[in-house]
């Protein structure tokens, strides 16, 4: 079984540019989550999808971040415009149900210059 895959693995962009991260969950997992870890901090929850619906986006930092999951399969997280403080590692996770263990991808390391 393929795990959670994320693309790209690394992204380096300049402040003010736009970046889109992609996550493909484990096949059949309706629940998809985004987390991020900024330098020196703990991994923090961003949002949760059940199929194509956003269940909880309370962790999204501000309106420069937009997550979508059209069709309930893969998800994208767009940052527009990127700011320096957005640098960090963005993780995606998925689970079969919302009570099941979350399985993580290897993350996208985002660097804003």
């Amino acid at each position, binding site marked *: 079984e393929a795990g*959670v895959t*994320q693309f790209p693995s690394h992204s380096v962009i300049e402040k003010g540019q736009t970046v889109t991260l992609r996550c493909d969950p484990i096949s059949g997992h309706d*629940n998809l*989550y985004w*987390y991020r870890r900024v330098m020196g901090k*703990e*991994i*923090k*929850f961003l949002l*949760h999808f059940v199929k194509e619906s956003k*269940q*909880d986006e*309370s*962790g999204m930092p501000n309106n420069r971040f937009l997550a979508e999951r059209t069709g309930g399969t893969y998800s994208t997280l767009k940052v527009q415009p990127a700011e320096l403080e957005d640098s960090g590692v963005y*993780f995606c996770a998925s*689970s079969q149900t*919302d*009570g099941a*263990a*979350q*399985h*993580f*991808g*290897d*993350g996208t390391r985002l660097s804003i210059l």
Partner: protein
Amino acid sequence: GESVGLHLPTLSVQEGDNSIINCAYSNSASDYFIWYKQESGKGPQFIIDIRSNMDKRQGQRVTVLLNKTVKHLSLQIAATQPGDSAVYFCALSRNDYKLSFGAGTTVTVRA
């Protein structure tokens, strides 16, 4: 939100010995607890989980202990191997989806 703390940020263990990694939490309403292992350049890898209606659960070479009275969680690794060197995170939730993570303990296995 939940506050999750660790007792030690680093742990050095002799190969073959048992490892114990600890985690403390603040919210007594937390009902689901997970341990993850993260190797360099990888994402957190699920090790074992436990729900609040249990106080112990065992996996392959790993045991998780939950003490709800003192809000303490621990991960025990038996016969630690070099491949166990990694950062270990405890995570918890009280609603089955929004995980709160601790800062992580870096485990180094000495040959």
